[in-house]
């Protein structure tokens, strides 16, 4: 399991699952910055699917620049994301 630190750049997985998820569409595939780890909670996707023992994962506050999300705007949007929703952005930006 990844263990993200504040300030690290992460990309939201560009998923489109069949069932319930808590990844807002507007951040899928987008790169943001870890603000903080909030604690650990059962993965909402598995809870909604009725999984008896859902995975418990860290949830992170991730900040996105409006310019990255919408191509304009000077504000930031933070979104709360379970660890399996995000992946580390490599040094070369890939």
């Amino acid at each position, binding site marked *: 399991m990844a263990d993200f630190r504040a300030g690290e750049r992460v990309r939201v997985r560009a998923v489109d699952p069949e069932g319930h998820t808590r990844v807002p569409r507007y951040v899928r595939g987008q790169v943001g910055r870890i603000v903080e780890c909030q604690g650990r909670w059962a993965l909402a996707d598995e809870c909604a699917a009725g999984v008896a023992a859902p995975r418990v994962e860290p949830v992170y506050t991730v900040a996105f620049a409006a310019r990255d999300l919408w191509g304009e705007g*000077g*504000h930031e949007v933070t979104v709360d994301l379970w660890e399996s929703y995000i992946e580390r952005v490599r040094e070369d930006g890939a």
Partner: protein
Amino acid sequence: MSGEHTSTPVAARVRRLEARLTEAGVVTEEQLDAALAAMLAGASPVNGARIVARAWTDPGFRERLLADANAALPEVGLSMAGGIQEQRLKVVANTATTHHVLVCTLCSCYPIGLLGPSPSWYKSEAYRSRVVREPRAVLAEFGLELPADTTITVWDSSAESRYMVLPRRPEGTEGRSEAELAALVTREGLIGTAAV
């Protein structure tokens, strides 16, 4: 943006769902009423306002509140444990150069215990879709014109945390009591769609 246009179809859906559940014997009307009453008991923006007034008058409390709100709330006789499980609370403080505003783009997550039931516009698609995209314009429609150099952060509560804004203490309020200060704080100020 205000108005009840989204609440009517939602209310109709909730009534149909209630009817199906009671007809099927899953719950009784009495159980539903009791659950709602328990959730809303004491839920009011007066709670949020008390937290803000204490933070304005007690720098130590302000520091503890911003660092770990759940640990600080008992100091004013409150907690986030009113629901099925204790929810994490994050308080975000406005400053001279930064402004915070809350949304739940996926549904309508909201710190009901501290702010009372959410306003209908908070649940509207218009607010939820626009505030993440053009917060400055949305806030101006609420009558909040922010200076051009104010940095805006929009907090989308998409998981298990709930948020509350700590507004800036208005100028000219020196010497006022905690109760007088609490009376200045509005629900919109705690959401971030008003200055206080």
